[in-house]
């Protein structure tokens, strides 16, 4: 399965090892992990709740993975995204890309994150010193996605 949406935590090392196992043509692995920061927009964060749109989420992620594989000379792409309530330091998302060479692996990994940030139906709600608030989309994410 190239994409997974789950409440449980993931083991990045194990996921990386699994993706490259048995593929001796892999020379480069690029990975990204998004985590919950204890501060966002200047305010302390106690918990972060991730909501998604069941049914659409997996297909949106699968489309992004397919697009990454089509656009870049890579061998495999994995996306794992958590939902539910997380705390500072917790892992939110993992993207792993394997390829023969590093340039395409890096590009495909960054592309996947940029697309995910603007096209995958996840929303974050923070609880902290400011009370409760939905995280606002960042213009820089639209700009990052528009590069590709």
């Amino acid at each position: 399965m190239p994409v997974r949406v789950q409440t449980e935590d993931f083991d990045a090392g194990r996921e990386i090892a699994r993706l490259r196992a048995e593929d001796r043509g892999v020379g480069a692995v690029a990975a990204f992990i998004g985590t919950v920061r204890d501060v966002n927009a200047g305010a302390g964060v106690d918990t972060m709740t991730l909501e998604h749109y069941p049914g659409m989420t997996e297909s949106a992620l699968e489309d992004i993975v397919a697009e990454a594989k089509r656009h870049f000379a890579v061998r495999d792409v994995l996306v794992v995204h958590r939902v539910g309530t997380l705390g500072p330091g917790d892992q939110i998302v993992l993207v792993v890309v394997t390829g023969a060479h590093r340039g395409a692996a890096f590009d495909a990994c960054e592309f996947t994150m940029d697309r995910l940030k603007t096209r995958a139906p996840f929303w974050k709600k923070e609880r902290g010193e400011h009370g409760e608030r939905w995280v606002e989309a960042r213009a820089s994410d639209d700009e990052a996605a528009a590069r590709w």
Partner: protein
Amino acid sequence: MRDSTDSVVRLRLVYLARLREAFSSAGEALSLADEAPTVADVVASLRARGNVWAAELAPGRAVRFAVNHRLVRVDHTLADGDEVAIFPPVTGG
């Protein structure tokens, strides 16, 4: 589930995240008496309810749409039985 009457389009609306909270609803059924309604027609219909509907869907508010789990623009034409999701810009990852 499909209507035998051509001129009525039955939709399943889904509200997510901030909009689900603002509308106090995760979704509803909506029928539009229109031959080929667009997402914009759905938005106009909801805005006409006034109050929080008019406020959250006011022109200039950033709102996104998906039809049958695909992101679409507001001019996307709807068919009977479509699932139309309305939500704020996504913030995952």
